């Protein structure tokens, strides 16, 4: 799954640690999500959407849409 976490984070000048703190996960998890190596659960995705005040689909994109 593609995502715009890195872009949204950069817009706010947050580090991965800052974002991890806000979402109650480890920095390793944020890094893995940004690199597309790990897909977050729905609750975590909703949490990110609330944090950035965006819709989930504005942040996360299902790769199969492009297949």
């Amino acid at each position, binding site marked *: 799954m593609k995502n715009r976490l890195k872009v949204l984070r950069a817009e706010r000048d*947050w580090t991965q640690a*800052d974002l*991890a*703190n*806000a979402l*109650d*996960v*480890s920095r*390793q*998890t944020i*890094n*893995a999500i940004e690199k597309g*190596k*790990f897909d*977050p*659960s729905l609750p*975590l995705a909703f949490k990110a959407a609330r944090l950035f005040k965006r819709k989930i689909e504005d942040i996360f994109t299902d790769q199969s849409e492009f297949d």
Partner: protein
Amino acid sequence: MKSTQNANWQQQQRSSTTKLAIWTVTWLLSLALATFGPMMFWQSTGLSLTATAVNVLVGIAVLIANRNQLRSLDELQQKIQLEAMGLTLGITIIIALAYTTLDSQFQLNAKDTISNLMFIIGITYIIGLLLGRRKYQ
């Protein structure tokens, strides 16, 4: 930034990990007592059985502490733990059954089978964790 909330989450994780470590050490000490007690300190069957019962009870506490520690992890950390445990279970079963087959055919009569199995479990689990961390880096 909700740094206080995450500090609580990290503190909870640290607390549960510390508790797991304490219970694990306690279990190891109780295991040592149950193993060496009859050899070095007493001749009583009752004491030996009591020491073993205590070891089992402490072992149950370790299981509970382990469950709580796993629950305190975030979802990626839990996934890494689950995959490491799956790998460990699979390899342990394969090796144990292979050994059983060889033993029935060739009467291997190897000493300290359980200790060797525990060693395999420990090493496989550590390798599984390292592979998991590397996979998601």
